[in-house]
């Protein structure tokens, strides 16, 4: 497989992952066709391999994604008619896990920075300086794991409450 084909395949795989941001019903119905269309367009847009053209293509892809995502989710929520089922629909998608991971990373990072700041500066030994940084990172990681367990428990309870069966995240 040459570089061009490998690049197309990797990009296609990434685009498939992006489609997980759409509501499950929409993704199931149109996902394959969207990938097909995207694969038709991709070689035409980047044949010359100029970096800025490739960037422009990806920017257009994200713009298209951003523009259509909101509408599709709004319709999915409206179709389900109510906050209960809409929560279940949201939970089925990758949107919630992504939001949870993002929040956890942010929380862990914030805690690490705050902990590092709380440790007095001016160590004479570089070893002690390192130890304090590692301690800060460990605290951040502990917070992330703690929040992660709490989040997973919450998600499990939510899934049970919504009576979802099968895989929670439909991959």
């Amino acid at each position, binding site marked *: 497989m040459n570089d061009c084909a490998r690049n197309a395949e990797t990009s296609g795989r990434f685009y498939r992952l992006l489609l997980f941001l759409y509501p499950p019903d929409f993704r199931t119905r149109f996902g394959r*066709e969207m990938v*097909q269309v995207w694969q038709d367009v991709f070689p035409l847009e980047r044949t010359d391999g100029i970096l800025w053209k490739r960037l422009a293509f990806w920017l257009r892809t994200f713009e*298209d*994604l951003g523009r259509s995502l909101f509408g599709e989710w709004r319709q999915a929520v409206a179709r389900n008619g109510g906050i209960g089922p809409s929560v279940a629909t949201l939970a089925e998608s990758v949107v919630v896990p992504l939001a949870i991971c993002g929040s956890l990373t942010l929380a862990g990072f914030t805690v690490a920075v705050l902990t590092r700041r709380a440790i007095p500066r001016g160590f004479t030994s570089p070893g002690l300086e390192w130890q304090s940084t590692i301690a800060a990172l460990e605290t951040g990681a502990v917070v992330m794991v703690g929040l992660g367990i709490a989040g997973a428990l919450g998600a499990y309870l939510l899934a049970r409450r919504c009576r979802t069966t099968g895989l929670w995240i439909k991959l």
Partner: protein
Amino acid sequence: MGEKERSKPTKHLSEARGPLTPAVFYILVALADGDRHGYAIMQEVSKRSGGAVRLGPGTLYGAISRMLRDCLIEESEERPDPEMDDSRRRYYRLTEQGGRALAAEANRLRDLARVAQSTRAVRKLRQA
């Protein structure tokens, strides 16, 4: 149906639905000449709009989803050229209701253009 309701003038289809979005309008135009699959619709829209309207897969299939729900288009079982074609593609065709919506929107745009042409500002620009 009451007498009062019956005496009401029948609304034009585009009035009842409201103006069509540019994406929906162009997709209807693209399908007016025959059945097409997603990529062909995308190309036709770009060609017909002189490159001004470029639909991405998300916008295209979002519009198609709504149009299927509103029965403006339907999935076509026939494949124009099965030998030359990828079987994974789905073809779409205009429904009778879609044709009526397209005609109504075209009339609405024509009337709108006529109103705009009759304004003093536009007349002045055309004379200049």
